[in-house]
């Protein structure tokens, strides 16, 4: 029914018109978004705001990974769950909301925790990944998987009144190519001591602080997709603090580490080997796989 010279439906022109007229987006940018597949790992304080803005923007396929269920203590910051969703799987709760906002997106629920065994299979179906998780074990696993599968990774974290954001493995060049962007292990070769790892559950978190970081993840993802890949401006980390005067600070980060055990030419990491990795042991935690 739609003439082929119109690449979008009339409804899509109406729905996305206000973003398509932004300079450097246009029809091509919108088509890039429509043709993209984005995976969000973690449907909590970061996953809620990032997924809702990506769904609104008209991503083609949006996958969500999380094995947790909604708890009352989540609701002050995980703003897509409703009070009646307490006890539901988080991914189901989020997707049921997103469908109402924008039914044009294809939503894929992965209602399990990410593990070394399932990570490559899940991530391989997507073009770009958002790390919205809560623990170093998952952050190393996600980064390693993205390196092995050449996927860019938009990573954010938050605690109390602070937030951090970095786009990793961008451009997502193969292992051993020094022109690729650094991975999580380039920046953090060794895991932090267990005592220094504080979760939002233990340390507390202000809702709008993690909210800002999640929305910024969506923004970096949209920019990456619209530009058709990394714009090559160099690696930076964004720090945010709501303590005292609200402030942001941009830091210039290193390139790929020539000795990185994941992304360098010295790396022995393979998709086969990934399945045998023990991230809990590596991070020194005796926690079960479900923390991932």
């Amino acid at each position, binding site marked *: 029914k739609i003439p082929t010279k119109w690449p979008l439906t009339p409804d899509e022109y109406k729905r996305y018109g206000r973003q398509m007229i932004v300079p450097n987006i246009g029809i091509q940018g919108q088509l890039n978004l429509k043709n993209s597949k984005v995976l969000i790992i*973690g449907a*909590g*304080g*970061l*996953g809620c705001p990032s997924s809702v803005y990506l769904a609104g923007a008209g991503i083609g396929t949006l996958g969500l990974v999380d094995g947790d269920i909604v708890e009352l203590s989540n609701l002050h910051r995980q703003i897509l769950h409703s009070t009646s969703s307490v006890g539901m799987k988080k991914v189901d709760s989020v997707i049921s909301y997103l469908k109402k906002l924008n039914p044009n997106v294809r939503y894929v629920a992965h209602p399990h925790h990410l593990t070394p065994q399932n990570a490559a299979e899940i991530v391989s179906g997507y073009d770009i990944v958002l*790390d*919205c*998780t*809560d*623990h*170093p074990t998952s*952050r190393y696993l996600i980064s390693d998987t993205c390196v092995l599968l050449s996927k860019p990774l938009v990573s*954010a*974290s*938050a*605690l*109390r009144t*602070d*937030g*951090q954001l970095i786009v990793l493995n961008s451009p997502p060049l193969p292992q051993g190519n020094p022109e690729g962007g650094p991975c999580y292990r380039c*920046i*953090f*070769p*060794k*895991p*932090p*001591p267990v*005592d*220094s*790892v*504080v*979760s*939002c559950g233990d*340390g507390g*978190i202000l809702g709008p602080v*993690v909210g800002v970081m999640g929305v910024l993840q969506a923004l970096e993802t949209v920019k990456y997709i619209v530009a058709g890949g990394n714009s090559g401006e160099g690696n930076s*980390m964004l*720090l945010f*603090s709501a*303590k*005292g005067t609200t402030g942001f*600070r*941009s*830091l*210039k*980060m*290193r390139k790929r*580490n020539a000795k990185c055990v994941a992304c360098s030419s010295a790396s022995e990491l393979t998709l086969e080997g990934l399945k045998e990795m023990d991230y809990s042991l590596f991070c020194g935690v005796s926690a079960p796989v479900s923390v991932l």
Partner: protein
Amino acid sequence: MSSENTIPILVEFTGGLEMLFGDERKHKLSIPSKDEQGNAVNIGWLVKYLCDKVMKDSRKEMFVLDGHVRPGILVLINDADWELEGEASYALLPNDNILFVSTLHGG
């Protein structure tokens, strides 16, 4: 405060690390320009100095492990990753800004 034998620097802590340093994010310091051997002071020297003279918390291992800044802390020299500047061997200059960032994991 400043003289020929001392240099002024600004040391900052964020990501929760400030809690180890009297809950103060910014520390304006005047440090000796030379160490005991007469060499220009570097970041390695500064880390030890912070641990010995500035840190209020007794859990030194939350900042330094095995003589190095503990894993999970980023060091920035004038807002650039210290890896770009020579890491611990970077010799401090007057008015340098040294930022220690504890990585966050929550989401």
